[in-house]
């Protein structure tokens, strides 16, 4: 079984190009998001203990480490979502010949949203530091 996993990665390394790189990123971010989904549901289950428990659980997430983690989550969602949209477009529309332009288009969109959203997440950081103490 482990050998199968190793072969999976070796096959990817034998054919290093942009498509293979995004394929691996898509899978890795996908697995990360599945793990996050389970944690997300589990953390919301504090609601069974009442509104105070849920509120204190949310307070825990208002700390610098979780805000940075939130930004990394956004990066994962962006990579997975935009790459998925790119796959859908190449599947549905006859634009196979324009694949490289499409890849660079989505790459620029990704960089743009990731850069702009830093401005969104940065103001929450000092706020959460003062809140924690």
């Amino acid at each position, binding site marked *: 079984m482990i050998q*199968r*996993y190793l072969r*999976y990665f070796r096959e990817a390394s034998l054919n290093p190009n942009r498509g293979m790189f995004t394929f691996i990123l898509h*899978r890795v971010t*996908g*697995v990360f*998001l*599945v793990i996050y*989904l*389970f944690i997300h*549901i589990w953390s*919301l*289950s504090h*609601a*069974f203990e*009442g*509104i105070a428990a*849920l*509120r204190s659980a*949310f307070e825990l997430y208002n700390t610098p480490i979780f805000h940075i983690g939130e930004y990394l989550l*956004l990066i994962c*969602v962006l990579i997975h*979502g935009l790459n*998925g*949209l790119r796959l*859908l477009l190449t*599947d549905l529309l006859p634009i196979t010949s324009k694949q490289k332009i499409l890849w660079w288009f989505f790459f620029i969109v990704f960089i743009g949203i990731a850069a702009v959203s830093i401005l*969104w997440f940065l*103001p*929450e950081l000092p*706020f959460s530091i003062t809140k924690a103490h």
Partner: protein
Amino acid sequence: MDITKTGVWSWLFQRITAVYIFIGVVVHFLVVHYYISVKSQLIDELATRITSPGWQIFDLTLLGAVTFHALNGVYAILCDLNISRRTRRIWAVFFWLLGIAMTSLGYLILIRVVQVSSPLALNLACTP
């Protein structure tokens, strides 16, 4: 490669849920973060939003779609390892049970959140 006929349906549903999740996650993210920065209290936003049936349906359908998409994605990764038909069947049953359990847990949480947040939402509405 062993492509069965049932794989086509999960492929199609993976695409359909992908489109729905793309829109749904953008809405979810904007709603949560807009209200965090404005009110700095996620729980108040949740309490006022969750009492409306439209948002309840949105959250429940989004959870169902995300769970299917997530577990079907992991199943696809496992299938790419060329596992035997028997092993695949076992994983499929496991993922279906896990998905149903997780979605039901989410539904129970939503019911509970509605229960505990309705007096809170009432309080917010009454305060000037």
